[in-house]
């Protein structure tokens, strides 16, 4: 198992665009690691630089303490799965899977045996003689995975491995991919722009923007405590409520009402942004006794999410949304009160966009 250590990694393209900006990152051995971000954030460049397809402008890349920054892609012992799978259309499935072994000069019986074994492992045994054009999207993806697995690399790099599949197949492939990675235990870095995919698959996520890592953490940390408003906006299938707020002592004035301020947020930062996920906001049909002056308003929109409903409430000139179970749905136009679940209310600095109170980096 291989640890990846990137230090001060910078990539500036010929046109002067800085794709990676002094990046420091460590991926632990056996970890399933996601690079998440909007398009143009540098995540694909980072993956390609690790593969050696792009040359770093400065900084170092180490695989298991070996400096590979200037090593040719073929000598890095990595396997990459591309978004379009990059299967060779003129080769059969078995030839595609065994291609890296062929390049490495293995004898034909050996590489065919390996390709068939890996193919069986990935449920491709009935398809080995076919050409890629005779395969479905999901099957093609598994062939591409099998080709990566067959050469037993130290590292897997996946570039948007699921984005060419349709929605239902994607869920299926997600489970498959996660199980495969667990079984093989190979350090894996994958790139995605889909936050749900990153949350579902990864052991840890690096959320990137403009060539820098905005937040690094487990899916739970990234979801529950986004480090800044960019991450808060990007993560979550229903967008986080981000509304202007004022700190008054230990209270937070929000949307015409008052919440108890999170611990450690002091009055010094008077103008702030309050952030709370709709999933963590409770609805009450009467003023709650334990939270007097809670924000209140009328229900304007109901959006059915299946087992839950997304309720949008107009209160004090702001729109706040909350997710409620299907049987607790309020009537449109009715008056409701809102309170956060304990410990779920977040406060962001208006200038820097960072989460308050700032944590000691060591802690």
């Amino acid at each position, binding site marked *: 198992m291989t640890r990846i250590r990137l230090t001060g990694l910078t990539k500036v393209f010929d046109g002067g665009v800085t794709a990676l900006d002094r990046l420091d990152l460590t991926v632990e051995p056996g970890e399933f690691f996601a690079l998440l971000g909007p398009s143009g954030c540098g995540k694909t460049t980072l993956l390609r630089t690790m593969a050696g*397809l792009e040359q770093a402008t400065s900084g170092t890349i180490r695989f298991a303490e070996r400096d590979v920054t200037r090593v040719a892609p073929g*000598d890095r012992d990595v396997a990459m799965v591309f*978004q379009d799978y990059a299967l060779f259309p*003129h080769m059969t499935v078995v030839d595609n899977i065994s291609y890296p072994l062929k390049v490495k000069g293995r004898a034909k019986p050996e590489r065919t045996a390996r390709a068939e074994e890996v193919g069986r492992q990935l449920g491709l045994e009935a398809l080995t003689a076919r050409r890629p054009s005779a395969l479905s999207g999901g099957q093609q993806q598994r062939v591409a995975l099998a080709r990566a697995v067959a050469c037993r690399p130290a590292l897997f790099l996946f570039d948007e491995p699921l984005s060419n599949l349709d929605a239902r197949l994607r869920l299926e492939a997600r489970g498959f991919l996660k199980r495969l990675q667990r079984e093989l235990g190979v350090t894996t870095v994958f790139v995605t722009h889909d936050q749900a995919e990153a949350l579902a698959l990864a052991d840890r996520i690096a959320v990137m923007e403009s060539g820098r890592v905005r937040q690094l953490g487990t899916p739970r940390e990234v979801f529950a405590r986004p480090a800044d408003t960019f991450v808060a906006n990007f993560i979550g299938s229903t967008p986080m409520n981000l509304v202007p707020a004022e700190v008054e002592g230990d209270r937070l004035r929000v949307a015409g009402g008052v919440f108890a301020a999170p611990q450690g947020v002091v009055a010094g930062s008077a103008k702030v942004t309050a952030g709370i996920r709709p999933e963590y906001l409770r609805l009450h049909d009467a003023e709650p006794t334990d939270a007097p002056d809670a924000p209140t308003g009328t229900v304007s929109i109901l959006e059915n999410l299946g087992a839950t409903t997304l309720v949008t409430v107009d209160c004090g000139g702001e729109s706040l949304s909350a997710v409620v179970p299907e049987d607790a749905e309020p009537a449109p136009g009715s008056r409701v009160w809102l309170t956060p679940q304990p410990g779920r209310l977040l406060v962001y600095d208006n200038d820097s966009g960072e989460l308050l109170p700032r944590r000691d980096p060591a802690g």
Partner: protein
Amino acid sequence: MPVPSRRDDAPATAVTGHADPGEAAFSAGAPRAVDSVGLGRARALLFVAPALLLIGVFLLFPALWTLYIGATNFERTGPNHVNPQVTWFDNYVDVLTDPSFYNSLWLTLLFVLFSAVIGQNGLGFWLAWSTRRLHRRVRRVVESLVLLAWILPSSVVAFLWIAMLDQRGGTLDALLGNPGTAWLVEYPMVAIIVFNTWRGTAFSMMLYSAALSSVPPSQLETARLAGATGGQTLRDVVFPHIRGHVLTNTLLITLWTFNDFGPFLITGGGPGDDTEIAAVYLYNTAIRDGDLGYSGAISLLILVANVVLALAYLRMLRRRDSS
């Protein structure tokens, strides 16, 4: 009425199952061109007539005329010009027993093989492949220079090459510092082969540039990540993708080179008949020697050779598509 068996008769079959039998009967003979504008056959022909006329006058008539004079003893001057006699297949028998005909075929074969199939093809591909990752501006300059050789008028180009290869004060001799080598006399075939490679590479280069951009970058990168060498990448990834382009390009430049008249402007077919390739042989027979009937027979034989070549390539292309 029998329904023609076509691949797209499926809709008609579907309609046959329809509840209304009248409609089914109506559409049974459906696959036929529909005159949707209401022009009528006569007026439609009128629109096509000018094009047909031009094709007839400038393509069809000369072809038939050549066929005709090939069967006569028609000459440029003299009594046989005024009063040509039909000699039927005499010309063909003469051509097929004439050593200079086989000489010209052999020279044409060498010319096509070395200057087009190997020279232009190879050099064009190499230029396209080796410049593909250079900076756009550098590539433009290379492309422009190569293209220049292609777009200059033949007469200008011929003059330049004579000036370069001439025995008295030729540029090449001056560069090499050994005056007195008469390249066009001592190495005439090599000279026109190098000339034609230089002259025609632009087309292959541009065609291969376009073809190479159709190779998915991710497949090239997969080969790179596997550690494939340049040769392996070409063999395993690039050529399978551009095989159709290679065949098409080879077909086109073969036919063009086969009928190329450019070398005439440099060597005139000489010295002697050392560079008398097919087109030059034909010209010399017809215009210099005035033997028009004989040259008619030669041109028909050259046409047959062209058709055979084209059919062979097309067959290869089709086999590739069906595999």
